């Protein structure tokens, strides 16, 4: 831990896990879908469901989906701001399996028709983890530029992706592979030290056997 993890962050109260972490989950989900949100179905789990309202978890998640950060003084008014912006949202309770008590599932639709389902957990101190994307396991701390590639589980995809990243001087910090069964749906999660050029992402999307490419940029955009 560094000095500013002890003194800091500057945040809207009352809870680093239930408020600041929830804002970050919303914010990262918005970065992942790379679109303004048209509608959000929000499924609260565990402690998020039980004490979320008193901690402002609902307002925090919506604030993040609107592009706010944890210290934004508009967080308490985010529900109204969402209505003004034309964002529809619905809250539900859910029991997710094998997740941290502070977890949420988000089903999002963007204004350009993009769709995304994310399960994320708030781990405390404002740190979060993206647990799954579109129903497939992922394990993303959301601190690095990250490519998430959904592909058919067959030989060759990993080497193509990694050699392309190497050619463009993108260093891989961490890489994880998941699949639901042999020859089924597979996911590559690649956390990088540098931002990944759009041309790589476009090239990847066109590759045979690639189902979906999602990219988490650390370059923050106010608008999409």
């Amino acid at each position, binding site marked *: *831990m*560094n*000095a*500013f*993890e*002890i*003194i*800091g*962050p*500057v*945040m*809207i*109260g*009352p*809870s*680093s*896990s239930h*408020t*600041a972490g929830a804002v970050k989950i919303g914010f990262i989900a918005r970065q992942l879908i790379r679109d303004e949100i048209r509608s959000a179905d929000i499924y609260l789990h565990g*402690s998020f469901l*039980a*004490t979320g*309202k*008193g*901690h*402002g978890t609902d*307002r925090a998640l919506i604030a993040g989906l609107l592009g706010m950060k944890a*210290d934004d*003084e508009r*967080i*308490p008014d985010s529900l109204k701001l969402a209505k003004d912006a034309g964002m529809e949202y619905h809250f539900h309770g859910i029991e997710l399996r094998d997740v941290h008590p502070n977890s949420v599932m988000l089903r999002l639709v963007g204004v350009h028709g993009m769709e995304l389902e994310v399960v994320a957990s708030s781990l*405390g*101190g*404002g740190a979060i983890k993206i647990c799954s994307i579109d129903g497939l396991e992922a394990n993303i701390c959301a601190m690095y530029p990250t490519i998430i590639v959904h592909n058919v589980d067959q030989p060759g995809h990993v080497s193509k992706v990694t050699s392309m990243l190497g050619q463009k001087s993108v260093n891989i910090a961490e890489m994880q592979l998941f699949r639901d069964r042999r020859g089924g749906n597979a996911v590559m999660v690649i956390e990088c030290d540098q931002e990944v050029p759009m041309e790589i992402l476009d090239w990847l999307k066109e590759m045979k056997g690639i189902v979906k490419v999602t990219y988490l940029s650390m370059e923050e955009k106010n608008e999409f």
Partner: protein
Amino acid sequence: MSFKSLKAIEQACGNQQKAFWEVVLEEDCMERMVTKQEGFEQMRSMFQSMKKADAGYDKNLCSASGLVGKDGEKISQARIEDKLISGNFISMVMEKAVKMGESNACMKRIVAAPTAGACGVIPSVLLTYEEQYGCTEELLVEALFVAAGIGEVLASRAYISGAAGGCQAEIGSASAMAAGAIVHLRGGSASLITHAAAMALKNLLGLVCDPVAGLVEVPCVKRNVVGAVNAVTCADMAIAGITSQIPPDEVIDAMREVGDVMVSKLRETGEGGLGGTPTGQGILKKLRATIEE
């Protein structure tokens, strides 16, 4: 931070002929690859955010649950009317601690130090000192580095969250950090800083985290007062020359040992202690009903 003990920081101070705060600052700059000046200015902005949060207290606000709010103003009034027996310094510390805790519960902007639940302890002491003793902002920023150094050792040897180690880890840690910070404000040595921190932590050892309905409200806001006032008295004891008979790092280890055996119902779940009382459970039920509406 590479320092795993308060003793190691104290020794570095001796070896390098530097103050506690400077050793912490330099170590942090090395780790984050920033210059000393950048690091110092970042901490200054934390101090200024604390000051802004204190000034931004809204005496008309209540939390969403309705359990806390408006109490800071009551202390303020009683203090101004000279009704309180704590004296002007302690009364103002109490007032600022409650105000910050309430601001946090009311979704205002605060600085987690080390956590949001304990956000009133350190600023209440530093800002009262600034108002009543009139020191430079630089000295207060240095004091925040002292607090950060103590907090980093606490986080690495034990914990700083109520969910992990009970309230002793949260308000207790904040109180230890604030006690060390005050000793720096008074010109005390590195050794005195660590002993003030140790005494503050000892006094709150075993304190459980038992929030009503799991919210950072009851008893959290008032425990910020306890943490802050305890910090002042322990700093004064250290300045008077009193030391902790148990070495500071061993006190931190004891906090961890106590936290490790604390059952989960006493670690932020809201099931035990005050949260588990008939009244606490009644409030929980009422709040649940409003959520389902």
